[in-house]
């Protein structure tokens, strides 16, 4: 046990020294990426460089990352156990939290909408807005709301897949004039990016909320599994 800790410490120290040396002696970049991004900004359809990289210049990466999110929530859906969903067991169902939520919820939704809209000219965008939306859902859940519409399997699946499907759909529609996948026409780039971001926001928020909600608190004790005929340790 102590030997393990000592070895781990030595290895970590070695990695820190090696990484630090790599940071110090890193080669100068051959490409001047900030300049290339800046020169391509006018044709991106948005005014903020990070959003332009995220949804135009490197949108293929973002597409695959959304696919990873969808994959994570699909696996979590497959692994969940059938159990009654009892939000009142969150133990936070009190009148104060409920009335504060009534004030907070509209504010959170406005913030999410602003972040989404602001993404085109300042820091913000689909990922931040989606996370804020998910936070609103988690808060609602902690306050004891049932969110029963999420139990509608068809609706939930459609919502989870909406972002990725819209992304792929728009990426393929723009191929019609004969350009490569995900190459937006300059004139409509801003509108297309906003449409993608809007659906991405909804799907990201729903994904994060589902990952939280799919595992309501229940007795984690393996003894319960034993009485229900589960596998033995």
């Amino acid at each position: 046990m102590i030997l393990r800790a000592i070895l781990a410490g030595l290895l970590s120290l070695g990695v820190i020294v090696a990484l630090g040396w790599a940071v110090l002696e890193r080669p100068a970049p051959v490409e001047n990426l900030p300049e290339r991004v800046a020169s391509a900004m006018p044709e991106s359809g948005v005014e903020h460089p990070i959003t332009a990289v995220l949804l135009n210049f490197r949108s293929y990466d973002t597409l695959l990352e959304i696919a990873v999110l969808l994959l994570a929530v699909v696996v979590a859906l497959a692994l969940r156990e059938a159990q009654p969903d009892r939000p009142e067991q969150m133990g936070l169902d009190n009148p104060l939290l409920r009335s504060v939520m009534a004030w907070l919820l509209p504010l959170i939704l406005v913030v999410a909408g602003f972040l989404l809209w602001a993404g085109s000219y300042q820091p913000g965008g689909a990922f931040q807005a989606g996370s804020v939306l998910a936070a609103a859902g988690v808060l609602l859940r902690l306050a004891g709301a049932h969110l029963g519409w999420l139990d509608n399997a068809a609706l939930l699946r459609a919502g989870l897949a909406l972002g990725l499907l819209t992304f792929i759909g728009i990426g393929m529609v723009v191929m019609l004039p004969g350009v490569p996948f995900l190459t937006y026409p300059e004139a409509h780039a801003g509108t297309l990016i906003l449409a993608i971001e809007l659906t991405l926001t909804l799907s990201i928020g729903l994904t994060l909320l589902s990952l939280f909600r799919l595992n309501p608190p229940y007795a984690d004790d393996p003894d319960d599994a034993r009485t229900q005929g589960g596998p033995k340790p």
Partner: protein
Amino acid sequence: MSGAISGYLVFAWSGVLLFGLGLFGFIAHRHLLRRLLAFNIMGSGAFLVLVGLAQDGRGVDPVPHAMVITGIVVAVASTALALVVFRRWYRASGRTDLPEDT
């Protein structure tokens, strides 16, 4: 090399330290939750290195920043997925670590 401790590199250095700390925790601990935390600390270190190195002399490079922003959301989702798997594992076996670790 001059400018080793200059402003923008502080983030990269902190990231390197966090990565090392996370690696230590990941190896030294056997409890799955501790390992998940350690792995997340490693990930945060990697993000900090990316963000820190992206702002060298010629202004901020937006490409690593865009990578980190998606990376954070993916890290949150994968952490949640890991928690789902851990809970299933604990419920099925009653253990908080992996058998080959003991």
